[in-house]
């Protein structure tokens, strides 16, 4: 069993609890144990906090990392926004003495010290990593293959970009999440401008909703073109933008898509035999039942 401190973030536990529930259950079936990271906070939101003062962003993210350091476990998480904060701040502080000293000065006030002793992973990359799980093991864990479904993948931005600060390589034509999706028995479909942003990040969703929805709408048009049954992503914030965003697009622009949006963990949960109820799929703003009908 590979054990990790499970960093939840905000949107997964507080809006889409199915993401959290499925992450814990699905990972256990492939030998990954997610332990609660007690007292963790918002990562904090890289767009909102980082825009105001990067130093506070470093300190707040470092606090979360320190909690895991105290557990002596690497962090696993399921949100690209969290990945940006936790992975990147951990990476920066490990290599920048000046910033680390600054952060530790603040953390001293709450009896904490950032040491740089752990690493940070996205659960999806642990699934893909053959040393931890790997595509084959994931495939073996499937009991209810998603055969006959066409699933489009949204990678999101902060998991893989900027590519120099990450370790995933090609950010123009990546296929590794598609491999994961196909391991679940589904057909992955390609669509135009797959790597474009969902539109929510950088505080833009809160700053100018129409602007942010217009970006989402462009993605929705491209997705509609290829006739996907569902969109999957690895980021609850992207999920929120696509899921609630479709309702908002309907309200503001009068266009209806009705494309189910599922976190990869939710998708994996379904493939491993979890029921829709166990995933709280009723909390999704876009009805996922057309998709469920295809697999149940």
């Amino acid at each position: 069993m590979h054990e990790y401190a499970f960093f939840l973030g905000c949107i997964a536990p507080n809006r889409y609890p199915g993401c959290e529930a499925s992450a814990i259950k699905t990972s256990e079936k492939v030998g990954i144990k997610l332990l609660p990271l007690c007292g963790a906070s918002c990562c904090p939101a890289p767009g909102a906090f980082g825009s105001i003062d990067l130093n506070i962003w470093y300190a707040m993210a470092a606090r979360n990392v320190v909690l895991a350091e105290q557990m002596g476990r690497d962090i696993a998480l399921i949100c690209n926004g969290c990945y940006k904060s936790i992975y990147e701040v951990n990476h920066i502080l490990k290599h920048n003495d000046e910033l680390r000293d600054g952060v530790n000065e603040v953390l001293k006030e709450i009896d904490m010290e950032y040491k740089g002793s752990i690493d940070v992973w996205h659960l999806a990359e642990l699934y893909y990593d053959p040393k931890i799980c790997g595509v084959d093991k994931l495939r073996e864990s499937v009991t209810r293959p998603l055969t006959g479904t066409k699933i489009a993948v949204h990678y999101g931005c902060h998991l893989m970009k900027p590519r120099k600060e990450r370790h995933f390589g090609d950010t123009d034509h990546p296929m590794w999440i598609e491999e994961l999706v196909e391991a679940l028995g589904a057909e992955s479909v390609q669509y135009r401008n797959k790597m474009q942003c969902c539109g929510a990040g950088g505080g833009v969703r809160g700053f100018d909703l129409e602007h942010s929805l217009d970006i989402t709408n462009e993605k929705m048009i491209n997705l509609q073109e290829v006739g996907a049954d569902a969109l999957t992503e690895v980021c609850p914030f992207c999920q929120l933008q696509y899921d609630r965003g479709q309702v908002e697009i309907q309200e503001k622009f009068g266009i209806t898509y009705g494309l189910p949006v599922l976190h990869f963990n939710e998708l994996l949960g379904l493939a491993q035999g979890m029921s829709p109820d166990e995933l709280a799929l009723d909390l999704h703003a876009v009805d996922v039942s057309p998709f469920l009908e295809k697999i149940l």
Partner: protein
Amino acid sequence: MAREKNYGNPSLEGKLKDRYYYSDDTNRDFTQEVEKIGRTIAHMCYQCGTCTGSCPSAPRSSYRIRLFMRRAVLGLEEEALTDPDLWLCTTCYSCTDRCPRDIAPTDVIMAMRNLAARRDIVPRNFLKTVQAIYKTGHGVPNNDVNRAARVKLGMDAEPPTTCGFPEYIEGIKAIIDHYGLKDRADRILSEGE
């Protein structure tokens, strides 16, 4: 610095505003500060436009990241910090990925936003997130619908974060207070009302 014309007529002043760029418009400190906060070589921009061409916000707004890069190069502080387009970057980092000069334009934007925030120029939604985190530890706090759903899933109503362990919120408050950010957010938000 733009010359005043003193026509004594606001609409004429507006229409005929001095639009020259003067050599003393450059503030080198601004360039350097942007580079320090953004940890990137902003002054090396050669204005190829790869950033704008990659930008998901550009086709639907007047936001041009290349112009912000130009402002960074020339130290056009006022123009950069007061342009509301500054807040339209979704931080997707496509420009950073593709910049042939190996600059991180996204981080230039972040640095400029930091500098704007020092002047109390911050959109309200950013400050509301600060207030939420100060109060609950979460930018997107828990709510009753969600609590009910969590219980139905067999989980605790409150996740094991600061929601379930509110004693940790003190630490978060301490960090935010260290920078005086909560007070600033409260003040700016109340001034706007």
